[in-house]
């Protein structure tokens, strides 16, 4: 037990300040959200399928094994079920402690790395907690928060699987320095196994890093026992993560490969020296001095070995992502993110040495300058964290009234859990978000950026991505088509829209017919003309048709029961009509009501006898077209509702 006076050492002051910063600031004042999007939308969907008994976790289609996920959604999903709260609630609360956990891990690792150098430990904890890039770029390909190449940037709320893996990686660095061989080997194996079960990219990467250190030691000491250690660590990690990786390996071997490529406009990170220094901030600057010092004789030792071998191994791997990005499972951004751990350690060595040799006044000035230069990045990170979770009620480009949707999705989620999983059909616009908020798997979905299919659905489910899109398009063409087609994809439940006593039995996302397979999404495919005056645009989170003046889109529905047409479009504001809708002989000119995507309704008391033609008088974006038909037995309040397909088709 430390004596009370020990608490006053600079190391303890730094740790306490870091813990407070992590708890209060990095949690963004205990942020709480019940409407998490981004990558968390995917993890939530997976967690809910796990709650339903699909322990391996599945994507939006029944049988589609997840690639990302593992212990993170399994544990959060289990906790949510145990406490009878939502996934978001559990993640919100658990994430408050993610930052402090990172600080404590850094402290533990620091003590292991520099048992006799409290100054280096303090510097390591401080840099691992407070470091931010010299940037305020909040874009997805920018430098801060979830895009940060600094591990410190990932301690902010909420905690993703990647963040857990990073914490375990840091723990691994400490374990590698454990003097007891047996513990070193066993715990390393356990940690890597856990990491594989949390993150299929960072886990194996950690295995490579451990093997590199032990391999280097074997080479340097001409001691084969290190090679035995590698085999033991590998064996343990493979064994304990087998539950997770074997099904995935089987999926890959079954053909189709991985479908994890990023949205094409998200330019892959390629760091050069200035960008490294920008992205790593003060850690980057100090790390260059630190690495140079660690290479000198004075600093040689086990800690220097781990830091330098990790750094060298990661630098060796980076060119592979540049040469063949499609073959490299770990992208450059992630490699730099892991690199930030040895970089932070090297920076801590540099910082502690500088503080030792420069006069006190200069040290104080440098620390103050460092603190000040971290302010812009910290402020931007906090703004980014806050802004990302305030858009409650929006998903993709659409507004979802939480008052309506949350109870509906909660009820649906309960049914999913009770029935041990469910396949349902709903309109293309709703399907992916419905899966994300309920775990109810879908006939088809649009795949926004975070929802990566992982594996080819055709191989694992028998139906390809485009085939499923086609099923939804042809399925939602009137009640008869719905009842004939949607059950063939396993759907047992419907989620439909009701308005003025009418039900949308016709529905189409016009962009859906121009989608390409998940693996074929590239720069050419995401923005391309598909007809005169009509451009298909894949915006990542949504897709749409951009209709230029004179351009038009036709829907070939013919049904006298269609009494109302709903069109979701984003029209330019102004008094002049932007959209012209031709139904039979009648022409309706529509003027913008709002600047955002808005549903516009047109009554068609005589039904639709020759399709619908939507034309642009001014350029606008077209998202969705629906046809509402009479369904007296489905009477109820306006808004979305669910109905078992068996009842609907009775």
């Amino acid at each position, binding site marked *: 037990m430390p004596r009370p006076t020990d608490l006053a050492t600079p190391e303890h002051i730094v740790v306490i300040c870091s813990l407070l910063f992590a708890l209060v600031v990095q949690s963004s004042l205990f942020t709480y959200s019940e409407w998490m999007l981004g990558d968390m939308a995917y993890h939530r969907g997976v967690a809910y399928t796990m709650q339903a008994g699909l322990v391996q976790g599945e994507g939006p289609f029944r049988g589609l094994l997840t690639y990302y996920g593992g212990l993170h959604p399994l544990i959060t999903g289990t906790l949510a079920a145990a406490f009878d709260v939502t996934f978001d609630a559990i993640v919100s609360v658990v994430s408050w402690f993610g930052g402090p956990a990172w600080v404590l891990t850094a402290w533990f690792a620091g003590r292991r790395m520099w048992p006799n150098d409290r100054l280096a430990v303090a510097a390591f904890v401080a840099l691992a907690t407070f470091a931010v890039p*010299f*940037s*305020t770029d909040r874009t997805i390909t920018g430098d801060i928060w979830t895009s940060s190449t600094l591990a410190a940037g990932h301690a902010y709320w909420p905690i993703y699987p990647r963040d857990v893996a990073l914490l375990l990686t840091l723990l691994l660095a400490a374990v590698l320095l454990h003097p007891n061989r047996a513990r070193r080997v066993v715990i390393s194996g356990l940690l890597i196994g856990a990491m594989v079960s949390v993150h299929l990219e960072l886990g194996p990467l950690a295995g490579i890093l451990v093997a590199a250190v032990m391999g280097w030691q074997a080479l340097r000491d001409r001691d084969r026992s290190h090679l035995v250690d590698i085999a033991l660590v590998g064996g343990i990690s493979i064994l304990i993560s087998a539950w997770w990786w074997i099904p995935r390996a089987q999926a890959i071997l079954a053909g189709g490969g991985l479908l994890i490529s990023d949205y094409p406009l998200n330019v892959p990170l390629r760091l050069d020296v*200035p960008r490294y*220094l*920008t992205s790593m*901030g*003060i850690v*980057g*600057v100090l790390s260059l*001095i630190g690495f*140079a*010092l660690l290479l*000198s004789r*004075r600093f040689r030792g086990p800690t220097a070995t781990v830091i330098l071998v990790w750094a060298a191994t990661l630098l060796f791997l980076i060119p592979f992502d540049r040469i063949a990005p499609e073959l490299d499972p770990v992208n450059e951004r992630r490699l730099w993110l892991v690199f930030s751990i040895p970089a932070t350690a090297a920076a801590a060595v540099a910082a502690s*040495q*500088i503080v*030792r*040799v*420069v*006069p006190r006044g*200069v040290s104080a000035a*440098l620390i103050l300058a460092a603190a000040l*230069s971290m302010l*812009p*990045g910290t402020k931007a990170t906090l703004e980014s964290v806050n802004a990302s979770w305030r858009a409650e009620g929006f998903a993709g480009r659409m507004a979802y009234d939480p008052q309506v949707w949350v109870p509906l999705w909660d009820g649906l989620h309960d049914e999913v859990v009770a029935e041990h999983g469910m396949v349902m059909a709903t309109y293309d616009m709703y399907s992916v978000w419905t899966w994300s908020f309920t775990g109810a798997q879908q006939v088809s979905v649009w795949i926004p950026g975070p929802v990566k299919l992982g594996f080819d659905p055709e191989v694992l489910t028998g139906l390809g991505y485009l085939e499923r899109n086609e099923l939804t398009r042809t399925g939602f063409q009137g009640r008869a088509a719905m009842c004939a087609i949607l059950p063939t994809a396993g759907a047992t439940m419907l989620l439909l829209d009701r308005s003025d006593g009418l039900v949308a039995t016709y529905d189409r996302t016009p962009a859906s017919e121009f989608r390409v397979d998940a693996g074929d999404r590239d720069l050419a495919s995401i923005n391309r003309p598909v007809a005169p005056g009509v451009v298909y645009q894949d915006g990542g989170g949504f897709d749409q048709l951009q209709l230029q003046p004179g351009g038009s889109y036709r829907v070939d529905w013919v049904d006298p029961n269609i009494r109302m047409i709903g069109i979701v479009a984003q029209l330019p504001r102004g008094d002049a009509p932007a959209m012209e809708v031709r139904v039979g002989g009648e022409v309706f000119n529509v003027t913008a009501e709002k600047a955002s995507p808005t549903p516009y309704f047109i009554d068609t008391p005589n039904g639709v006898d020759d399709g619908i033609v939507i034309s642009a008088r001014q350029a606008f974006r077209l998202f969705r077209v629906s046809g509402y038909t009479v369904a007296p037995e489905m009477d109820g309040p306006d808004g979305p509702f669910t109905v078992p397909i068996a009842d609907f088709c009775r």
Partner: protein
Amino acid sequence: MTGVILGVGWSLLALVAFALLLVLPGMSLARRLVAMSDLTTLWVAAVLISLLLNAALTAALLTVGVYDPRYVVAVTILVSVLSLPSLVRWLRAVPPPVAVVVGLSLLVAVAPWVASVWRLDFAPSNTLQWYYWDLGRALSTAGGIPGTVQEFGRAVPWLPDYVFFNGISEAYSVLMAPAGSAVAMQVWRVPLAAAGLVAMYLVARLWLDRLPAIVAVAAAGASVFFLMKFNAYKPESLGIVVGLLAAWLVVRGKRERNATWMALGGVALGVDVAIHAIAATITGLVLMAAAVAELVTVAEVRRRSLALLAGTAVITLSVAVGTGVALQGRPLVVTEVLRPAAGRPVDPTWTYLQYSNGNFAGQPPPSRSTRLAAGVRSPWPGIQLGWPRGLWLVWVAGMGILFAAVFGDRRIRAGLLAGVLGCAALAAGIAFFAVAFSTYVPQHTGLVRFAQYIPGGLGFAVGFAAQGYIVLWQRITGGLPSRGFASVVAAVSIACLVIVARESYRGDDGIPAQGREAIAELARHGEPGDVVLSNALTTGQLEFHTELEAPLEGRQPLIEEPAFLDHANAMLLAAHRFFGPERDPAVLQALGVRWVLVADQPRLLGASASLGGNVADADRDPRLTLRWQGAGVALFEVMTGAGDET
């Protein structure tokens, strides 16, 4: 491959020409001033003495009105021959390993400049180098200071600002005659770049160890300052080299208490004012800062040192003013810059700059801060500094400089002080021009021309930072970085310089084949005294290649003589109206145009801006007769009486 061989061959010839003009003539006399053991000082003294010899010869011949560059060349070759024994001794005195390392490093460092002249078809486009060349040619043709030259249809005084540069470049053109003027102009950059890098290294070595000095040179050489100043045939690069060498010799003279060296440096700096006034002013500021730092950082200031420095300053000013009065028609060029042209709601110089860049929309000038920021925001190609993205540079350079200040010895601290004082002087210069004047040109001198030197200063700051990290390393580890580490850092620094410079020059476009063909056709059809008008806003290439009069290829409006400035603006506007939809032919008569050269894209004639119009429109003009047509370019002859209707 032929291009590579020729490019290297012409580069070597240019080096020989430079050696004959600016190294060898002074070698013999330099031997009397500097001990053979001090090889570097000997070399610098030889260069500056050679320069003075050239300047004196040129000035004398111009004064008596018998100037011919061949006389200058004959004398310099004669003196060079007399210097050969000294050269041989100098060469023998250089230790072979040093010669190999220095030679190879320099060869690698200037590789991008040599590579930029590899292209046989390459003719430098869209710079003012044509204009400078024509200034020199006018000097040779007149045999003395020319009375006037034609610009914008009027006779204006010949621009004497670069008179010694013109003298040296004319002598150089005589030596490079086998290569032809265009090639000579291209390869000029090779010896200048080599000299520029060496001069920067010498200045850096006044305060820094070898490795940080190499880092400083690489960082400054890869900066937009050096890449922009040494990318073409222009007086400023020569002015920078001379200024830096002069400053170096003065500081060395002060340290060694050698009044002769200081005087030689002072005279050379005075002459430098008539090579390029801005370069001389800024290197003079560097010298001033270095001198003050030398005085401040010694334990005891000696009166003799002060007197010598003051004397050097007096010599510099006297030479500059003497040259100005004798040859340039005013004591100092700054008196021209200070000429007022404003007092009107719209700055006519800004209007001129807009018109001469093909912009007739009447945009207001950008703010002073915008103009300043544009030049310093990207000190190295591809690196954009901003808040907070530029903080990395502040940290890398700032922390190293801090260590240099904390742990460095007197020499390093003197360098840091010189840097601080130099920055302050430069900032004061920028502020003076930016604030004290309301017209574009003097503001431009401060905000842009002076500010262009800031990236070079940042390069030196990086060198000081490297020095700081080395002393920090010594403090922490108790030893110096290993020789291998130092070699790697030096090699990486030079590699960075080479890569950045090569990439920067790779994009240089010459005049495309059809443009060269069109200019050749113009030269073939034209007769002496003919006037040519082009819709491409060329900067001297038409006059250079055809020796015809292209009235819009002028630069004298920037002197801000109000009446001439208004006239130039009126001519540019009239030309725009002729090529534009109005097709107003007034300009044809006003300038007495016989030939009209039209390009669909200005780049076809090596220009970046256009007055408007295209070949098809011109072809429909009944006042023009097509004489020749290529892809996107056509030459028309003006029908007699075409402009009379106005």
